[in-house]
Structure formats: structure tokens, C-alpha cells
């Protein structure tokens, strides 16, 4: 019996962890290549959830169509934001991009509050069934999160290691100067990276949003979790972010299951601050792909 509870918690943790891995993987890519910390990252996750909600409830679209719409819309919005606010600041004091993305997160958060109110929204997907495996239960949506999440993470890995652009991204992350010398259009890589990072957050948003009541503050929560994850995984390391993301999800689920759900965020922060103090380069060190 106790084993079943453990298994159940681990499964829940895996679902959450895949979400963290997607959000943090994008954040790690953006940091690794552009050297900026995107404080608004979770807000893109949140907005994807809201576009999904309105796509389904107002436009009456089916789940997958609304999800696709949400991802496209959020990426387009992110691209616009990158061109308008981040690109002009890339060559200036790093504090500027930090402040700008912080302001951006406020802007997005409060805009959603004005448009949709601060109350929760629930999204009903067609995957509301429950799968029972022995004593362990799993909703179909959670299964979808895991399957789709793993597929997307796998696609990301393949993309980074096997496509020219993926290799250029890793090269740029490691040595921007050498990349420029070799004729890589680093500005273009930046734009693409930002778009990709946002897309991953949006994917996580459309997958996770139906699992929880959707509130505007979920964005900030995810930003903070993603920060914890990329610090744990080694700033800028995408594989590190994925491993640390899944790991954090598990630890949180176990904490929620065995201690109290109120303190599960505390565990993340505690682990984070300990890591920062003892190993400032994170558990897995530096580098985008290794």
C-alpha cells in the first residue's frame, strides 16, 4: 500500500516535472545563448493557458486546435516582444534586460488580470477520463502531458544535436565571438532562440493549464520554479534543466504527499539556495548541450 502511494506521488511528480522541464528548458536556452534572464518566461506559459481557454470557450475550438492557436499566438507575441524590447537592449548593461523582462512580466500579468480578472478559470479537455493501473490512478490529461512533453523534449534534443541551426545555437551559446567570426548570424539565432524558448513555455502552458485552475499568478509561480530549475541544472544547460525540472517535480510531489502541500514550494527554494551557496555553477555545470 505504501508503495502504491509512493508510486502515485512519483507519477504526479513526473507530470509536474515534465511541465517544469519544458518551461525551464526554454529559459535555459534563452539564458545560454542570449545571456539574458527572462523574468517574463512564466507569463508566456500563463498567457498560452488563457489563449487556450478563450479559444475553447469563446471561439468554440476543439482542444488541439485551440492549443495550436495558443502556441502560435504566444510565439508571435514573444517574437514581437523580443524585437521591440529585448533586441535594442542586448548590447547594453545586462541589468537593463533584467529590468525590462521584469517589467514585462508585470505588464503581462496585470493585462491578463484586467482582461480576465484574477479569479480562476477551468479548462475542460476531452481527456477527462481516468486510467487505473492497479492502485495507481492517472487522468488522461496527465498521460497526455507526459507523452506530449516527452515527445517535445525529445524533438528539442534531436533538433539541438542534429540540425544545423541546433548546432549553431550550441556553438553560439558556447562562444558568441567565435560564432560571429565564423559567419553565424547571431542576431537571427537570438530571435530564433527566444521564439523557441517561448514556444516550449507555451507548449507547457496548453498541456498543464487544464490540470489546474488557471489564475494569472501561475505565470510568476512558474517563472520562479523555472529559475530554481535552471540554477540547479547549471545556468544555460538544457539537458541539466530537463533533468533538474523532472527532479524538482518529483521532490515537490513527495513533499506534498509526505509532509504538507503548503511547504512544497519551500523545498524547491531551500534546495535552490543551498545549491547557490555551495555550488554557484549549479549541479551540472555550464554548457547548453553537455
Amino acid at each position, binding site marked *: 500500500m505504501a508503495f502504491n502511494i509512493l508510486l502515485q506521488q512519483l507519477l504526479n511528480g513526473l507530470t509536474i516535472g515534465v511541465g517544469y522541464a519544458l518551461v525551464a528548458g526554454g529559459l535555459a536556452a534563452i539564458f545560454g545563448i542570449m545571456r539574458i534572464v527572462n523574468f517574463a518566461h512564466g507569463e508566456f506559459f500563463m498567457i498560452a493557458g488563457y489563449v487556450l481557454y478563450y479559444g475553447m470557450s469563446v471561439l468554440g475550438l476543439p482542444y488541439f486546435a485551440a492549443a495550436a492557436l495558443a502556441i502560435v499566438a504566444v510565439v508571435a507575441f514573444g517574437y514581437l516582444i523580443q524585437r521591440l524590447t529585448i533586441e535594442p537592449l542586448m548590447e547594453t548593461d545586462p541589468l537593463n534586460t533584467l529590468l525590462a523582462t521584469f517589467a514585462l512580466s508585470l505588464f503581462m500579468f496585470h493585462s491578463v488580470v484586467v482582461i480576465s480578472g484574477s479569479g480562476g478559470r477551468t479548462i475542460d479537455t476531452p481527456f477527462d477520463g481516468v486510467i487505473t493501473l492497479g492502485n495507481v490512478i492517472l487522468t488522461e490529461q496527465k498521460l497526455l502531458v507526459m507523452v506530449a512533453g516527452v515527445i517535445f523534449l525529445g524533438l528539442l534534443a534531436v533538433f539541438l544535436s542534429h*540540425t*544545423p*541551426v541546433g*548546432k*549553431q545555437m*550550441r*556553438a553560439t551559446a*558556447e*562562444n558568441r*565571438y*567565435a*560564432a*560571429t*567570426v*565564423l*559567419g*553565424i*548570424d547571431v542576431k*537571427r*539565432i537570438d530571435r*530564433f532562440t527566444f521564439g523557441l524558448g517561448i514556444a516550449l513555455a507555451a507548449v507547457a502552458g496548453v498541456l498543464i493549464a487544464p490540470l489546474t485552475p488557471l489564475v494569472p499568478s501561475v505565470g510568476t509561480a512558474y517563472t520562479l520554479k523555472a529559475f530554481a530549475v535552471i540554477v540547479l541544472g547549471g545556468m544555460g544547460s538544457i539537458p541539466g534543466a530537463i533533468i533538474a525540472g523532472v527532479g524538482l517535480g518529483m521532490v515537490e510531489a513527495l513533499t506534498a504527499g509526505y509532509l504538507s502541500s503548503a511547504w512544497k514550494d519551500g523545498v524547491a527554494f531551500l534546495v535552490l539556495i543551498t545549491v547557490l551557496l555551495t555550488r554557484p555553477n549549479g549541479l551540472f555545470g555550464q*554548457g*547548453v*548541450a*553537455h
Partner: protein
Amino acid sequence: MLSIDNLIVNYAQVEAVRGVSIFVGTGEMVALIGANGAGKTTVLHSVMGLLKPKAGTITLKGENLVGRPSNRILDLGVALVPEGRQLFSHLTVQENLEVGYGRKFRMRFDRKGFQSRLEKIDGYFPRIGERLNQIAGTLSGGEQQMVAIARALMSDPDLLLLDEPSLGLSPLMMDTVIALLTRLHGEGMAILLIEQNARAALRISQRAYVLDSGRTTLDGEARPLLNDPRIQQAYLGL
């Protein structure tokens, strides 16, 4: 081929280059020597479009290079081997070469073109072929320098710029690099070489320019300069 005329570059408030004119003919190997801080790297960076000159012109085969982004300059046939090698040390040797080859923003990779280019280059670096899957950072210093040169050659340049290729190399490895440059030059590639080891550079070059505090103080045939006391003066002061 390359013609730099009266180049002036300010770098971090300093007039790093104050009126330098350099000419590299087709298939010519030219050395650019001088003490540290004389402005040699600044000249190469200006050619490569990494720095914006304050004044002066840089033309390649009659085409103006000033104001063009680095990737366009590369397309015109210039490649730079930067100081300190600057490999992508977490990527494999092959990936380093691929990045040097397929720099255009494309999702599909021209594998055929890459292979044929690689075979061509393999002739220069006999041991690169065995090490394609090795992580670049684990190579020895000399091997890294070889990969750095090979990576620059992947773009099939007409003019190769090298910034201190012998820095930090053992004498034996240095000889290998020198031999490689001589061979490339023999096959008709134009080379502009910055080298701290002035004597080694002068021995293999046809012509040389001596830079001092951002100005050309001496130029001419390389061989006669070898034992010219003014070289020693430029380095050690008198």
C-alpha cells in the same frame, strides 16, 4: 586582393589603429608583426567586420567591406582564425567543422557538400579524420589549433586571416602550423598572418608590415627584414 587604405579605428576610447594601409595581393602571404598592443588584432577585426572603423577603406577584390556584417564578409571569401583558437570546446570536432561550413540559417544540412569539403581539407590535416567524433575541448593545444584552421577553411575562403596561430604551441607543433601555412600558400591561398614570433613569420611570408602604436613603421620584402635591427627596435625599443 585585400586592400586596406588609411584605416583608423577607435577601440574603447583608444585610437588603436591610426592610419594603416595594407595590401595583400592574390595568392600572397603577408605578415603583420609588431609588439603587443600595436593594433594588429584590431586590423584583422576590422577586416572581418567585427569592429567599425572610424575612417579609411577596406576592399576585397574591389568590393567594399566596411559596414558589412561578418557573415556577408565571409561570403565574399574571407575567413579568420582568431587568437586563442576559440573552438566550441563542448562540441565534437565534426560539429565544429559543420558550423564552419553550414553557417547559413538552414534547417537542412548540405551533407554532400560538407563531405566533399571535408575530404579536401582532410589532406591538410591527416589526423582530423580519426578524431571527428572527439569533443574538441579534449584535444591537445596543437590539435585544437589545427581544428581552428580547418574550421575556418570549411567556408572555402580566398583570403585567410590568422591571429597568432603559434601562441602557446610547442616548437614542434609550431613547425607543423608553419608547414601547413606554407602549403596553403603554395596552393594559391592569400594569407594575412599576425604572428608574435616575428622571425618565424618573416621566414615564410613574401612581404611584411611592422606595426607600432597603431601605425605602419616599416614594410617591404619579408626576407631582408629578418635581420633588420629595426625589427628588434620595434619589439624591444631603443
